[in-house]
């Protein structure tokens, strides 16, 4: 590559294609003018190549750079941080087109492209994107190969073929490196990419304001149990407690996030499971009641809920163990906690307070009162719906005594209110309920529409007890899931007509959905989740120990075992191109050898033909057909001109082979006709 060379057209073709492909995954996150800018730059560059336009001058380039930087600043609000950096990089990637004169500039663009392909994974790690980026890499490598080709060779497909071969040959070593390269923790703290929309649970709930609850069919998390999973009605996935109530909204208390160890007694059956949470950009993780985990990234907060130390900016897999029947804080409740969980704002819901007082009078025992309240939800005509009536100032009063229509948040909020008013410490627990078992991968799939809220009340001697008023109203919601509960209403996933989950009743579609989900699950678990803990688990399983010396030694051996055959394969001697006549000749002679007929060394085709015709008088016609064709092709045609007629040779050969006897002819072969050499 001399310094004065121009960029070959081969390379430019792939470069421009690769650029648009590499930019594509980023475009949805970026404003429209970015796409317009790329188009402008690309058109300009093509016009330069066609010698219609000229390269922009220094002033234009500086202005463009300044304008683009300003654009990034206006879009992102800052120039610091990952998002702004990636966007700026994308801009440079486009603008560099306009000063790409020499192969060296093209190299810079290709390297920027490689970087941009990698950064797309910071924002999305799905299987489709991974496949798409393989394609981007292929195009970038093709551009790289095109850069090295001899200029004037107008053959972009060849560069692409070479790039494909190179990448395929690189795959085995990549896999070995991926598995063996030691994973470590972050070198320094980094900001999460994206002020992306947080998904999943909200931090607070205000049931009174909701006129229609839209729920998505998106995935919240998956959980794989070591043994059989509990029945669906017991799958209460706890994510947070909402203890603060301001008269309308239930929200988290900052007190909950402390990690002081509380007293609890594991009891009953235990479940060991692994949860693979999707990136929610929130700190919630999901566990069953009575959970504990060895995972360093998690902590158990004082409300007995597992929480992540940092928001889940990417998928996260963790193991936990739960005793759902445990006693939580059974001995006594701290004063501060008691006050928090009994607090009700003044001036709201007088009728509910009266109702609580009535209940208290008839049921002096806390446990009795709790049961009575649940019975109340069961007996009275409450209706489970995702289209509740909006409620006014005294929301609990209106819900409990007037509208009686609502979803889990209404029931849980109202029940907690009444319990508190009756002097029983209570709080709302938010999380997910239920899940769909994927029989293919034997794991439970929990969707966003499985979000749920229920109630925890503190009873002396029993500690915190979980109760679910929704179960009293709509048991099918708990036992069989939301879709069943809403069958008559038809409001299940109304907002997303294309969500595959909606069509669970269509057999093949459901199978396809579950298959795709299993694929994603394995991807999440085995590929995306392959970090230090899973890696050491992997080593322990295969090597028996996680001893570093042993791992190092085995890694070295495996690397060599992968690299040496690969090197040999690449450097293997190329096959000498064999002409078609030669191949036909060899094929015929192999077949004749079975009849114990062999051409003598140096015997020409005509002599050989003579001999054959004498020994095989039955096949004389076929033999002479083949040899006539052979001789004509080998000696009478210009080399390379016999493409069409060599098909005739093949035909003649096939006819001859078919005509030859299966085994040695019964008549002994006389060698009398052998011509002298």
């Amino acid at each position, binding site marked *: 590559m001399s310094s004065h060379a121009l960029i070959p057209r081969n390379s430019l073709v792939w470069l421009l294609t690769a650029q648009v492909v590499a930019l594509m995954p980023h475009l949805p996150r970026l404003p429209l003018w970015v796409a317009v800018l790329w188009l402008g730059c690309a058109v300009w560059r093509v016009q330069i190549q066609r010698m219609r336009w000229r390269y922009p001058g220094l002033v234009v380039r500086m202005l463009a750079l300044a304008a683009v930087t300003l654009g990034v600043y206006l879009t992102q609000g800052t120039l610091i941080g990952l998002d702004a950096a990636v966007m700026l990089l994308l801009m440079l990637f486009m603008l560099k087109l306009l000063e790409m004169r020499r192969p060296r500039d093209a190299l810079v663009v290709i*390297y920027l492209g490689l970087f941009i392909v*990698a950064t797309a*994974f910071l924002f999305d790690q799905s299987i489709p994107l991974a496949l798409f980026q393989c394609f981007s890499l292929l195009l970038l*490598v093709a551009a790289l*190969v095109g*850069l090295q080709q001899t200029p004037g060779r107008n053959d972009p497909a060849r560069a692409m073929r070479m790039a494909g071969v190179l990448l395929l040959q690189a795959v085995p070593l990549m896999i070995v490196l*991926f598995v063996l390269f030691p994973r470590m*923790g972050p*070198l320094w703290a980094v900001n999460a990419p994206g002020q992306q929309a947080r998904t999943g649970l909200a931090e607070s709930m205000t049931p009174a304001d909701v006129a229609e609850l839209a729920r998505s069919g998106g995935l919240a998390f998956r959980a794989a149990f070591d043994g059989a999973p509990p029945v669906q009605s017991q799958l209460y996935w706890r994510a947070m407690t909402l203890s603060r109530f301001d008269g309308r909204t239930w929200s988290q208390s900052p007190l909950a996030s402390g990690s002081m160890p509380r007293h609890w007694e594991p009891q009953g059956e235990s479940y060991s499971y692994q949860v693979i949470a999707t990136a929610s950009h929130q700190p919630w993780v999901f566990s069953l009641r009575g959970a504990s985990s060895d995972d360093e990234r998690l902590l158990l907060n004082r409300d007995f809920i597992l929480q992540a130390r940092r928001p889940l900016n990417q998928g996260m897999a963790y193991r936990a163990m739960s005793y759902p029947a445990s006693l939580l804080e059974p001995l006594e409740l701290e004063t501060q906690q008691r006050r928090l969980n009994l607090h009700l704002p003044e001036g709201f819901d007088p009728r509910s307070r009266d109702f609580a007082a009535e209940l208290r009078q008839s049921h002096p025992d806390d446990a009795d009162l709790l049961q009575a309240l649940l019975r109340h939800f069961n007996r009275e005509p409450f209706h489970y719906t995702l289209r509740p009536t909006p409620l006014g100032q005294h929301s609990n009063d209106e819900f409990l005594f007037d509208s009686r229509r609502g979803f889990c948040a209404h029931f849980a909020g109202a029940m907690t209110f009444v319990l508190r008013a009756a002097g029983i410490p209570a709080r709302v627990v938010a999380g997910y309920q239920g899940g769909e078992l994927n029989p293919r991968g034997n794991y439970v799939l929990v969707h966003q529409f499985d979000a749920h809220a229920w109630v925890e009340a503190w009873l002396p001697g029993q500690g915190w007890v979980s109760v679910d008023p929704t179960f009293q109203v709509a048991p099918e919601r708990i036992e069989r899931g939301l879709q069943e509960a809403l069958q008559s209403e038809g409001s299940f996933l109304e907002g997303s007509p294309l969500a595959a989950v909606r069509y669970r009743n269509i057999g093949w579609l459901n199978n396809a959905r579950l298959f795709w989900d299993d694929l994603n699950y394995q991807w999440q678990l085995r590929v995306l989740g392959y*970090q230090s803990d899973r890696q050491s688990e992997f080593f322990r399983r295969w090597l028996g120990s996680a001893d570093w010396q042993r791992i190092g030694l085995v890694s070295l051996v495996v690397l060599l075992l992968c690299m040496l055959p690969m090197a040999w394969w690449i450097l293997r001697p190329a096959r000498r191109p064999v002409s078609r006549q030669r191949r036909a000749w060899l094929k015929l002679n192999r077949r004749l050898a079975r009849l114990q007929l062999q051409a003598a060394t140096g015997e020409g085709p005509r002599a050989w033909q003579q001999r054959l015709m004498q020994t095989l008088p039955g096949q004389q016609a076929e033999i002479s057909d083949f040899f006539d064709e052979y001789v004509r092709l080998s000696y009478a045609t210009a080399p390379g001109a016999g493409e069409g007629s060599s098909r005739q040779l093949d035909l003649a050969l096939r006819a001859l082979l078919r005509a030859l006897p299966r085994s040695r002819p019964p008549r002994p072969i006389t060698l009398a006709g052998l011509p002298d050499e």
Partner: protein
Amino acid sequence: MISRLGGQTSVLFQHWLKRRIPAASQVRLNHRRIFIMPTRAGMGLLLLLVIMLIGAINYQNSLVYAVVFLLGSLFWVGLHHTYRNLAGLELQANGSLPVFAGEEAPLNLTLLSERREHQAIVLFWPSTPRRQVDVEPGLSTSLSLYYPSTRRGWLKPGRLRVETRYPLGWFVAWSLVDLDWQVLVYPKPLNLPLPGLQAGGAGEGDQLLAEGVDDFQGLRSYQPGDSKRRLDWRAWSRGQGLHSKVFAEPRHTSQWLTLEQTPGQSLEQQLSCLTGWVLQLEQRRRPYGLALPGNRIGPALGETHRDACLRALALHGVAR
């Protein structure tokens, strides 16, 4: 001091190279003769990979890891492909014609590949521009490289660098081959008036000479060394074989050329002057002889004679 040390190492290197890749007119590149190193582009890629790896570690991102490892193994695969692109290539030096000093000496070369295609093979000497060729399998590719000649005598271009960066440009595989080329470089001709000819007499002599050429005597069968200008093409086209026309010898006396006749100050200028005269006399078809100290070539005419004279001039005082 340092430069002396550098000079010594370079001498040692040349010596080592001579043993490793001895001079031969035909060389097949193999692992003993090929060197390979990452290029700056390759180092740049490694730097990029380190940055990406840090990103993968910090963001705990498996797919960024995967990209890093894929490019890393591509780097390793590229190493073998670059080597493979050069290995097995055969270089064969073909004969080369003499040139006059100052001209570019054409060095003929054939590249052969038995089985494999070799793409983007770059050939050059440190002082010459690069020449890039593709070699198809089973075919031979012939080309001429040009090497500037500066001095008369034997021109021996140094080792030819054969290199390739194909396919990825991350590695450069090269070999330094000595194809044992040597080109005879005649002195640069100077066009000075011939000695012993008056300004007017020159024209007269030309006339005489012209008559002499026209003094056609007959034909004799062609012998190697006969001037092409005297071939009887007409007879040849009639299929009567190759014949040379024979003319009557010009009647004037032949001319001896010596160093003493030349006006130049230095030996090189004098030889250049003699070269010019040889060419002029040959063109005018006047027999000439060359008398150099220690080398006498009797008067004659013809291309063979001219070449012998030019060769004597080129090699005068040059140790073989």
